């Protein structure tokens, strides 16, 4: 993934990100830190193609994003797994249906889909909540459903926004192991977090975002 002089502003508001340029190696594992309101989520939005940059160019999977057709963009999004800071589960679907959604939208059906989703939910410790609706889950549980949904499609790029913000320490470590596992089989992983303990514990390169500028810390 490559960013070239990327700017971002919402509507006619102030510039949140200014002239970001960097290159992320495929298969790398990165942390993204920065104070609250620095623009971490905004930067990730650019990466998972939820918002267009107001300037500059983004290259993803060796393709320039600008100028792609809507179907090509959708195909690209399917190669990206996202853990949203606010979970974004579909209220009307049960946990297992939320988790299997990324498989279903590419037309996969049948038992293997369900088995897959079930296995992942067990892995994140939600054995008993398969058929619960998101509204009846605790925030930590929602976050774990969201993580399961992000990884079920074995994405080429995994983007996680504070994925351990609502779970306790042990569980957090367990989830980080899941991401490292995925990274080993080739997925590029980017994790935004403000949990400095977590960053210190795992020795991965860190990108630090502050006042719209990015610095790289090894």
């Amino acid at each position, binding site marked *: 993934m490559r960013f070239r002089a990327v700017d971002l502003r919402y509507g006619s508001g102030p510039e949140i990100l200014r002239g970001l340029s960097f290159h992320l190696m495929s298969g790398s594992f990165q942390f993204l830190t920065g104070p609250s309101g620095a623009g971490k989520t905004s930067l990730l939005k650019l990466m998972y193609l939820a918002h267009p940059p107001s300037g500059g160019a983004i290259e993803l999977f060796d393709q320039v994003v600008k100028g792609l057709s*809507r179907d090509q963009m*959708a195909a*690209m999004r*399917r190669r990206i797994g*996202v853990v949203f800071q606010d979970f974004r589960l579909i209220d*009307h679907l049960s946990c297992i249906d939320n988790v299997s959604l990324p498989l279903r939208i590419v037309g996969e059906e049948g038992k293997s889909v369900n088995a897959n989703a079930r296995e992942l939910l067990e892995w994140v410790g939600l054995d008993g909540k398969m058929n619960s609706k998101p509204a009846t889950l605790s925030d930590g549980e929602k976050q774990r459903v969201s993580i399961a949904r992000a990884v079920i499609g074995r994405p080429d790029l995994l983007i996680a926004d504070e994925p351990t913000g609502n779970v306790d320490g042990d569980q957090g470590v367990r989830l980080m192991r899941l991401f490292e596992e995925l990274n080993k089989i080739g997925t590029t992983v980017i994790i935004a977090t403000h949990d400095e303990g977590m960053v210190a514990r795992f020795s991965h390169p860190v990108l630090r975002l502050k006042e719209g500028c990015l610095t790289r810390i090894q």
Partner: protein
Amino acid sequence: MPFLRRHQAFSQHASSQILPIILAVMVYLSGLVVIGAMILDSSISRWSGNLQANLTIQLGPLSKAGDKEALETIVKMLDEMEGVDSARALPLEELEELLVPWIGGDVLGDIPLPRLIDVRLEPGAKLTSHKIMERLAEIAPNAGIDDHSEWINSVLKLGHLARVIAVAVVGLILFVAVVTVALSTQAYFAVHQSTVEIMHVIGASDRYIANQFGRQALTLGIFGSFLGMGLTLITFTLVQEVAADATVPLIGKIWLTPLEWMTLGLLPCVVTLVSMITIRLTIFFTLARLY
């Protein structure tokens, strides 16, 4: 299909219970009004048809004994005319009865009397009184015709007016039904906005999203529309039952022709279609706003 069934969970919000009810109410309303207009229309047709189908022809005073032959010729000619159902001379006795209050029984015996011919036209015949007069002029120049034209014109005008009003009301109500259905569908969609956004951002194609919701809306639309149509039919049947007991004057029929049934059947289809199109357009605009 379990996936379809599960995706119907999309619709478990309160507003998805309200949408079919609004559709049902709209179909019900339009259905009753359309049926009413159809019955009104055919009643008026029948009624004005009946009026026009009946003429009286007067032949100037004939002496009692003579001209019997001439009268028969004229009746025969009329009877054989195209568009005439039957023609019949009023017997002298009936005529005299009619005239007694006017000129007194004692005078009647002496004076020559006019003769009346009662003509029934075939339903829907294009024959006008003018045409009949032209034909009559050849053999009975002193004939007159009474086609109740003053009355008929008044009544026909009233009937025509009733039709215009009925068409206007039906048009207005169909328009309102379409607007209400479109607005309600949009309101229904409002609570699903976030679902569309989530599906989009995890990589569902526009077509996939539109299809999922379209199917959803189709199910709700069909359910609502046909519920409404069912209520219409129940109401209609009840009205038929009641009307069968207390024969309503002047309303010719309380049933519909096959063509009218088909027109009625179009209603729920149109409502479902409007709902579908609204959903598609709303999704299209929602997605177009997303990157």
